[in-house]
C-alpha cells in the first residue's frame, strides 16, 4: 500500500513538473507571438493607406484566380456564398462549385437559381480524384461552373476543383462562407507584391453568427446572442490575429484555414494536392507544400494577411462545437504525425525548429497535459504534495494568464480593425475574454482530448458538422 502511494506521488511529481514546463512554454510562446503580431499588424494597418489596391485591381498583370467551393449538403447557404463570390471585386475570377454528391437540394438550388444548363465539358485530371458526373454552366454567367460528382469527401472535391480550374492560383472557400467584396484582392496583394514566389496566401476567418447579411454581403457586424458563440469570437481573434500572424512573420506557417486560402496551383499539384489520409486536408497540404519546396530547394514564401475577411458560421451548440473541435484535434495530430520527420529538422528552418514543435507539443499534445493537470493538481493537493494555497495560486495563475492573452487578442482587434462598432460589443468581448478561462476552456480541452482518443483509436472519418444558417430572411442576423 505504501509503495503504491509512493508510486502515485512519484508520477504526480513528474507530471507536476511537466505541467509547469508546459505552462511556461505554451504561455511564453503565445506571449512572444502576441508581441510579434502587435508590431506586424500595427505596421500593416499603417501601410494599408498606400497599398495601391486600385492599381492591382486595374492592372492587366494581376493573375486570374479560380475559387473552388466544395459543397456537401449546403442547400441552406450555397446560394448566399456563390452570390457573394460573383460580386467579388477582382479582375479575373473563375468560380468552381464542386457538389460532392449532396443528398439535399444543393445542386438543384444552384441550377435553378443561376439557370445553369447541364453540359458535356472536359475534365483533364492532373490529380487523382473521383471523375465528375456532370458539369453545369450558364453562358451568361461565364465565370461560374458547377461540377457534380459522387461523394468522395472534401479533399476529393477540392482535387476535382483543381483539375477543372484554369488559373495559376486557386482559392479554397467553404460553402458556408461569405467573403468581403475586396477580400480576394487583398489576399492576392501579397502574392503580387512579392518578388519571391508566394505559394500560400491565407486570410482571416471571422464569425458570421449574429451579423446581418444582405445580397451576399455582410452589412452589419454584431455579436451573436449565445455565449458559446461569443467565446469563439474571442478565440478566433486570438488564434488569427496573433497566432497565425506571428507564425507568418517567422515564415513558419503550418496552419492555413482551408475556409479561405490561396494556393499557387502548380505547386499544390506538385505537392500532391489535397490528401485523404487526414481529416484536416488544409493543414496537410500546407505541410506538403513546405516539404516540396524545401526538398526542391526553391525560394518561396507563405503569407498571412489580417484584413481579407472571410465570414463563416461557427457552431452554436455544444454538440456541434464538440464535433468541430474533435475533428480539428484529430486532424492536427494526424498531420503532425504524418510529417513528424520535419520535427526539429533544421532543413525546414523555423517551420521544423519552432512551428511544428509548437503545433505538436503545445497545440497537439498540450491538451493531454492540461487535462491531466485538471486531475493531478487537485490530486497532488489531496496527497499532500502541494499545499492548498500554492495549488490555488497555480490554478489562478494559469487562468489569469489565459485571460491576459485573450484580452491581448481583443486589444489587437481594437487597435487595428475595430470590426465590432458598438462600445457595448467591446465590453462584452473583454468580459468574455476574461471568463473564457472559467468553463469554456476546460470544455474545449475535453473535446480535444476526445479528438486525441479518436486518433489513438485510429479513426479516419470525421464527424460532420452541420451548421445552421440562421438567416430566415435576408437582412436578419445570422
Amino acid at each position: 500500500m505504501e509503495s503504491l502511494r509512493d508510486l502515485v506521488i512519484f508520477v504526480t511529481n513528474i507530471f507536476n513538473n511537466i505541467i509547469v514546463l508546459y505552462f511556461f512554454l505554451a504561455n511564453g510562446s503565445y506571449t512572444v507571438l502576441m508581441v510579434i503580431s502587435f508590431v506586424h499588424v500595427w505596421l500593416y494597418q499603417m501601410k494599408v493607406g498606400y497599398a495601391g489596391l486600385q492599381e492591382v485591381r486595374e492592372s492587366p498583370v494581376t493573375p486570374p484566380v479560380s475559387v473552388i467551393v466544395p459543397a456537401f449538403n449546403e442547400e441552406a447557404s450555397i446560394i448566399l456564398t456563390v452570390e457573394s463570390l460573383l460580386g467579388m471585386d477582382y479582375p479575373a475570377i473563375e468560380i468552381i462549385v464542386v457538389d460532392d454528391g449532396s443528398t439535399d437540394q444543393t445542386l438543384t438550388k444552384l441550377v435553378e437559381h443561376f439557370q445553369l444548363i447541364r453540359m458535356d465539358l472536359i475534365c483533364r485530371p492532373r490529380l487523382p480524384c473521383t471523375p465528375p458526373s456532370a458539369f453545369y454552366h450558364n453562358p451568361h454567367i461565364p465565370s461560374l461552373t458547377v461540377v457534380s460528382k459522387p461523394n468522395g469527401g472534401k479533399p476529393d472535391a477540392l482535387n476535382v476543383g483543381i483539375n477543372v480550374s484554369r488559373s495559376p492560383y486557386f482559392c479554397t472557400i467553404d460553402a458556408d462562407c461569405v467573403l468581403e467584396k475586396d477580400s480576394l484582392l487583398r489576399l492576392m496583394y501579397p502574392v503580387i507584391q512579392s518578388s519571391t514566389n508566394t505559394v500560400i496566401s491565407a486570410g482571416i476567418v471571422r464569425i458570421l453568427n449574429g451579423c446581418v447579411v444582405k445580397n451576399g454581403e455582410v452589412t452589419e457586424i454584431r455579436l451573436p446572442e449565445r455565449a458559446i458563440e461569443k467565446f469563439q469570437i474571442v478565440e478566433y481573434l486570438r488564434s488569427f490575429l496573433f497566432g497565425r500572424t506571428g507564425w507568418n512573420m517567422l515564415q513558419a506557417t503550418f496552419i492555413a484555414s482551408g475556409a479561405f486560402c490561396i494556393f499557387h496551383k502548380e505547386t499544390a499539384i506538385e505537392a500532391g494536392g489535397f490528401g485523404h489520409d487526414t481529416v484536416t486536408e488544409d493543414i496537410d497540404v500546407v505541410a506538403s507544400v513546405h516539404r516540396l519546396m524545401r526538398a526542391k530547394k526553391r525560394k518561396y514564401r507563405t503569407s498571412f494577411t489580417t484584413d481579407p475577411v472571410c465570414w463563416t458560421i461557427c457552431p452554436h451548440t455544444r454538440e456541434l462545437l464538440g464535433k468541430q473541435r474533435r475533428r480539428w484535434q484529430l486532424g492536427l495530430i494526424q498531420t503532425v504525425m504524418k510529417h513528424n520527420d520535419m520535427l526539429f529538422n533544421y532543413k525546414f528552418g523555423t517551420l521544423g525548429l519552432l512551428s511544428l514543435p509548437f503545433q505538436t507539443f503545445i497545440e497537439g499534445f498540450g491538451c493531454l497535459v492540461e487535462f491531466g493537470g485538471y486531475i493531478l493538481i487537485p490530486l497532488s493537493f489531496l496527497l499532500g504534495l502541494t499545499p492548498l494555497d500554492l495549488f490555488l495560486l497555480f490554478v489562478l495563475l494559469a487562468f489569469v494568464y489565459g485571460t491576459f492573452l485573450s484580452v491581448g487578442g481583443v486589444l489587437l482587434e481594437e487597435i487595428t480593425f475595430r470590426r465590432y462598432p458598438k462600445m457595448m460589443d467591446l465590453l462584452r468581448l473583454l468580459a468574455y475574454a476574461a471568463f473564457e478561462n472559467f468553463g469554456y476552456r476546460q470544455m474545449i480541452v475535453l473535446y480535444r482530448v476526445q479528438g486525441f482518443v479518436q486518433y489513438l483509436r485510429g479513426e479516419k472519418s470525421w464527424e460532420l458538422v452541420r451548421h445552421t444558417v440562421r438567416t430566415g430572411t435576408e437582412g436578419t442576423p445570422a
Partner: protein
Amino acid sequence: MLIEEIISTVVGLILIVVVLGVGLGFLSIQRRVTRTRYFRNLDASRQQVKELLDSIYENPGPVKDAVQALQVLRSSPQRRALEEALLRRAQDPVHFPFARDIIKELGWIQKWAHELRSRAPRPKGRIAEMLVELGDDYRRPNLLRRIVLRLQANFVRRCKASDKLGQVPSPEGVWAMLVGTSDPHPEVQEICLRHLGQLADPATLPILIEELIAVVEGRSKQSVRNIKTSLVQFSLEDIGTFTAALQHPNRRVRFFATDIVREIADRHSASATLSKNDFSPDIYRLFTEKFHLDESPDVRARAAVVISHFHDDLSAALLRKLLEDEAWFVRMHATRAAAHKLYLPLAAEVVQRLTDQNWLVREAASKALIQMGDLGADFILEAFIHSQDHYTNEQICEELQRSGLLVTMLDNIPSMGASAVLKDSALVERSVEDERYTLALLVVRKMVATGKITMLLMLLRGPIRSDIKLLLLRELMGSYTPESLETFEVCAETDPDPNVRTTALYAFQTALERATAAAMAAEGAEK
C-alpha cells in the same frame, strides 16, 4: 527552493499578469473612446472642410486668398480632413489645377518632397542625369531640419509622402519620386515606381526600364509584377524607348520587354484597331524581322500578339508561320493573336490548330474561330461536322456549349412548320433554302454521334421553339441512354405542344424498345 519562495513567486507572477491584463483591457477601452472621439471630430472637420472648399471653388480667386481662408483649419482632424479633400479633388481633372496650386501654396508638396528625399542617397548615374535634364532645382533643408527629417521620416512616412506626391502630379513630385526609386527601403521604391508608372511621363520611362532589367537580373528587390504594372501604363508612342530592352542579350529581359509592349498594344487596341502605322518603324522592323525568329519561345509567343496588331500582309504571313511553330505555347499565343475578324483569312490555318497535339492550342483555336465572328463560327461548325478526330470533336463541342454558340445557332434556325421537320425531303428543301438550317442539323447530328447529348437533352426540357424541339427529337431518336429516356418521357408528358408530345412519345417508345433489346442482348451475351 522553499515552498514559501515558490508561493511568493507565483503571487508576484499573478499580480504582474493581472496588472498587464487589466492594463490591456483599459487600453482597449481607452483606445475605443479616443478613436470614437477622434473620428467624430474628423467627421465634423470633413463637413467643415467641404463647406469651406465648396465656397472657395464656387468663387475661385487668387490661390493665396484660398490658402488664407484655409488657415482656420489648425487641429489634427481638420488638417487631415483638408488633406483628404484636396487629394480627392486633385483626382478630378476639372478641379486638379486649383487643388494642386493650393497644395503647393500650403507648402505640402515641398514638405512631402523633403520627407521622401530625406533618406535617399545622393542621386547618381542615370537618375542624376535625368534630374538635370528635367531641371531639378531641389534645395536641401538646413542641417537641423535634415536631422529632424532623418529621425521623423521613417519608411511609412516616406511611403505616404511618395503616395501623396503621386496623387498630385508636379515637377517637384516627379523629381522626388525619381530620387525615391533609390530609397533604402524597397516599399518606398515600390510606391515611387508605381506612381511614376501612373504618371507615364515619357521622360521617366528609361528609369523604369532600367529597374525592370535590374529586377530580372536579380539586382532589385522589387516584384516583376509591380514593375510590369508600372510599365504597361505608358503610351504606344513611348514603346520606342523599349528598343534597348527588346534587344537585350538576356532572354528574360527580352521576354518581359516584349510582354510589356504586348500589354500596351492590347490596351490601346481595346479602344481602336491598331495598324503598323501606330508603331515606330524601328519597333515594326524589330518584330517583323527578328522576334518571330527569336531563340526564346517566350519572346516569339509574345511577339506573335504584337505582330497581330500590325494588321498588314506581312503580319498575316508571320502569324501563319508562328501558328506552326515548334513550341506549343507559341502556337497557342499565335492562335489567340489571330482571334479577330480581320484575321479571317487565317481561319483555315487556325482550323488546323483544332487538331493540335496540345489541348491548350486546340482550346485557343476553337475560341479564336468563334471570336472571328459569324464566318469564323461557320468555320468551326464545318470543322466539327467533318472532323474524325475525337479530341478535336470534344474540344469544339465544349466550346459550342460553353460559349452559348449552340443555343444561338439553334435560335437562329429559320422557323418552319412542324410537319416539315419530320420529312426527310424537308432537309433537302431547307438546305437549298437556308444553309443555316442544314448546318445546325448536321452539328446536332454530329453531337449525337459523338455522344455529347447532355445539353441537347436539357434544351429539350427547356422553353425553346417547338420546331427546334422536333428537330432535336428527330436527331436524338436513336439514343437510348437512361437520361434520353427520361427526357423523352418528360417531353411526352409535359410539353405544351401536342406535336412535340407525340414525337417525344414515339422517341420514348423507340428508345425503350432499343434499350430493352440491348439489355436482352447483353444478358444473352453474359449467359
